[in-house]
């Protein structure tokens, strides 16, 4: 027998409460039917013997205490899954919105997922070639990694994401399928169009699954969007052995939705009004990247977030940085000087890089080249701050050579352009050439053997017109 409840007891923001209900499980889904025949979905967020609190995904606009009938489904939210999802577009709650009708599901899965047992994880080792020098050389993306892009409003993170999608290649090309799952949370309609159009133009639409929640869609749906996207990704990766790259944008909009929802539930806020469980909640998303022992697929995540006021200590980028395995930080100054991608090298990092590069993966000299580039570029910023005080003329010859290195590095290495796709060999050779513009004695992270092989000041001088 199916029980239906007529009417509601309380409406507060996205939440409704029902009195006098029984047999309802925590996290269960419910369907609310309005008197005009329209349907909305809800989820149980608190339950006691005779009362249940539901969050309504489509919002509570138009609901009254008397005009709804609620039917509980007896199970948590499940997403229908099938390989046909590739090339399709879904709403943030997983309903097809491209007008091609429902998919024929092979199975259903709980969108909350389950924690992956650490002993069943495979340590990620193989890299993904993005064709972007700054990322490939200095913060290499590894299969099964979660590497977010920290950006700001108005910076070119969307363009970068599209470029990564277009150029990304699995290193060993062992004929396995590679696909993208794209989750948009609270993005502007034209941004969503930009992604759709770019995927079409590059011919990659057939290997993309899109979940779209626009900025004017209900916030509760936004909380489901990344979960739907990751459920689809896990399904494709671990049951169809595909390599999946998940792009989630914009995590800040997601966190704000969570905050709005939390405050309407009357929860005690922690920092900046965000709920105390923001860390655990973000972790429940980010940790769904990885490689599972015994499966040949992988889930790699590139979440994109905009730092409010470019503040990296804001709770969302801060907590994200603690969970993810590194970060790619974009810089407004570089962006304003026309550098694309405006990757700020020093605060960027890939934690898994050290085990996924070098001999057998990229090239044996990769680690050394990257270390030296980092160290040299760190000295560039020292020299620059000194130059801003005492003037460039007064600097020592050494500091001047760093200033020159900094300029060349930004011009030739970081500023790459949207259409340039470099192989890892090209990237590393360019790195060594740039390092060759510095005095030999400054290369303190490189051993003599590699200096012998790669240091060529004369060639560099010709190359960069010094």
């Amino acid at each position, binding site marked *: 027998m199916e029980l239906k409840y007529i009417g509601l007891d309380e409406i507060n923001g996205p939440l409704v409460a029902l009195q006098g209900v029984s*047999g309802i*499980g*925590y996290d*269960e889904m419910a369907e609310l039917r309005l008197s005009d025949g329209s349907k909305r979905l809800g989820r149980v*967020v*608190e*339950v*006691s*013997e005779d*009362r249940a609190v539901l969050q309504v995904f489509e919002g509570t606009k138009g609901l009254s205490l008397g005009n709804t009938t609620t039917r509980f489904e007896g*199970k*948590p939210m499940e997403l229908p899954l099938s390989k046909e999802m590739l090339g399709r577009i879904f709403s943030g709650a997983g309903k097809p919105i491209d007008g091609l009708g429902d998919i024929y599901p092979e199975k259903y899965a*709980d969108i*909350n*997922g*389950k*924690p*992956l*047992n*650490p*002993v069943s*994880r*495979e*340590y990620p080792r193989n890299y993904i070639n993005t064709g972007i020098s700054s990322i490939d050389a200095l913060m290499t993306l590894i299969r099964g990694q979660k590497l977010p892009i920290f950006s700001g409003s108005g910076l070119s993170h969307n363009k970068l994401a599209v470029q990564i999608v277009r150029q990304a290649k699995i290193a060993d090309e062992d004929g396995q399928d590679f696909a993208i799952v794209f989750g948009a949370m609270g993005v502007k309609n034209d941004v969503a169009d930009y992604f759709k159009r770019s995927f079409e133009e590059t011919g990659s639409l057939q290997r993309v699954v899109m979940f779209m929640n626009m900025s004017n869609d209900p916030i509760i749906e936004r909380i489901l969007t990344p979960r739907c996207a990751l459920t689809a990704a896990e399904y494709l990766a671990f049951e169809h052995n595909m390599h999946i790259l998940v792009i989630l944008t914009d995590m800040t909009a997601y966190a704000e939705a969570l905050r709005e929802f939390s405050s309407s539930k009357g929860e*005690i806020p922690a*920092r900046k009004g965000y709920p*105390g*469980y923001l*860390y*655990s909640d973000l*972790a429940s998303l*980010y*940790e769904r990247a*990885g490689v*599972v*022992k*015994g499966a040949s697929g992988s889930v790699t995540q590139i979440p994109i977030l905009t730092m409010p006021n470019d503040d990296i*200590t*804001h*709770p969302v980028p*801060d907590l994200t940085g*603690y*969970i993810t*395995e*590194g*970060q790619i930080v974009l810089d407004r100054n570089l962006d304003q000087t026309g550098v694309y991608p405006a990757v700020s090298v*020093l*605060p960027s990092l890939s934690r*898994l890089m050290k*085990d996924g590069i070098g001999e057998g993966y990229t090239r044996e000299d990769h680690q050394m080249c990257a270390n030296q580039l*980092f*160290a040299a570029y*760190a000295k560039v910023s020292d020299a620059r701050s*000194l130059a801003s005080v005492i003037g460039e003329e*007064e*600097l*020592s010859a050494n500091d001047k050579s760093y200033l020159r290195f900094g300029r060349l590095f930004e011009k030739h290495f970081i500023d790459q352009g949207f259409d340039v796709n470099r192989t890892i060999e090209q990237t590393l050779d360019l790195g060594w050439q740039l390092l060759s513009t510095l005095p030999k*004695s400054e290369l*303190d*992270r490189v051993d003599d053997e590699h200096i012998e092989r790669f240091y060529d000041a004369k060639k560099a001088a010709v190359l960069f017109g010094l």
Partner: protein
Amino acid sequence: MDRIYSINGPVVKVKRSRSFSMMEMVYVGNKRLISEVIGVNSEFTTIQVYEGTTGLMPGEPVVGTGAAMSALLGPGIITNIFDGIERPLRSLAELTGAFIGDGAEVSSLDTEKKYSVTLTVRQGDTLSAGQVYCTCPETDVITHRCMLSPLSKGGEVVWTAPDGEYTVNDVVCRIKTPRGEEEELTLCQRWPIRTPRPCAERLPINRPLITGQRVIDTIAPIAKGGTAAIPGGFGTGKTMTQHQLAKWCDADIIVYIGCGERGNEMTQVLEEFSELIDPRTDRPLTDRTVLIANTSNMPVSAREASIYTGITLAEYYRDMGYHIAIMADSTSRWAEALRELSGRLEEMPAEEGFPAYLPSRISEFYERAGYVKTLGGSEGSVSIIGAVSPQGSDFSEPVTQNTKRFVRCFWALDKSLAYARHYPAINWTSSYSEYIDDLADYYRKNVAEDFMEVRQQISNILVEENTLMEIVKLMGADVLPDDQKLLIETARAVRVGFLQQNAYHKDDTYVPLEKQYRMMKLILQFYSLGRKALEEGAAVGSIIDMGWIENIIKIKYDIPNDKPEMFDEYSARMDKDFAALGGGVAVGA
């Protein structure tokens, strides 16, 4: 039968029940989810569930166990990997697959495996709490000593099993208590995780925990039985530092608690530690390691418990007379778990939403460290090294500040050092150790008589450099007089050559105290010879051009750890070079 009244996340309430006591372990729901009672009043019993509550319904049963949340202690702990409530993850994977399911009941210890047990007591002996009654080899390097539980009153041994092969649940000994009751002793015992295990007395702390990491061993050393905190923003290398300490510190056993951190990191520890060979024992590091992995996406209440489970295991091995080092990565995640649960209980928050009892919980945890004389009469220690992840890299936030009050060693990780890829990114000016004075004797006796003075001189150079850098930042290094230029160059040798350490280099990843001392001596020799040369009229440029700074910076790679005698060569060559320089100057003048 008690039934669930309400569910909110991991918090479940039972209405009007008198059957539960505080901190009792209970099973919730039809799936028997492991849970703990955290609040009792006449209206409601509040319970936190250690597993996911999705699908749980009001009306499902709640069953008490009559015992507090406790850990099962016995052979089979070392080399294992547990979740926050001591469920072995390998068995869980066999039971529920790659993704962890709910309500899986597995024994903490392998009940099938047989250990070769040697009884150490005979019929007629008296056995008191903490005394060993049998031993068995647990791994190739750890001998497990089964002790009478501190909860027992002790008594006379009335029966012992013959030496042989036994499982953890086999009875190997029976004792008769003074009241005439018989107690059966197996290889294992239970202990409530939130209660510190007792010891005979706390001993003074005066032996260092040698880590082979130069900046730690010389600048801010930690003692066996001591406490240290490693605060640092993301990307500054907290986890990397913890891994280095876990690999190389001279504790007998490492308890590594991955508390609310990344899953891939735990996988890395598992992989790396099974491949790395402990130089002292020639066995893989896993043979002395136990891992507690409650990653950030595993249930938050189990994360709260993981810290206590870890320290209980450590205290158990301490009582056998071992030295244990606990790595807790990260205590901030644990504090956040406290905050999250406190929020669900609608408690009044103090700073930044953290509960008012945060400081007392932190101090309770760190106070469980110590160097003790055990009930059994041997000596053992538990050292705690806790990583702290300050929100927004701001050290004034509540967890960092409260931790700072209760630890005696503070290794502050610095973002700007990490950006410059100076690892370990431990800032030498803001880090400190209160153990210096306690350990001075040890260093004098075991390394060198003048170790403390040498250490002080090195740290003076760094302090002076720090002051000079203010001027350099404003006016450039060129305006400094020669002796200050020399100091800045020497300080660079200290920073790059001594403080910076390469964890991926086979020699540099662990450096014995002897070599650390000789390295410092060589730097000081350069500095004093340089100053003398300056006084005799040499130009600072010619001193720097000698290339000794570069030589010093490369010593860490050029002199292998097992050839300290090479330092004598270096030292003699430096004397010669400076003599030649002095000669050159004299001729020129």
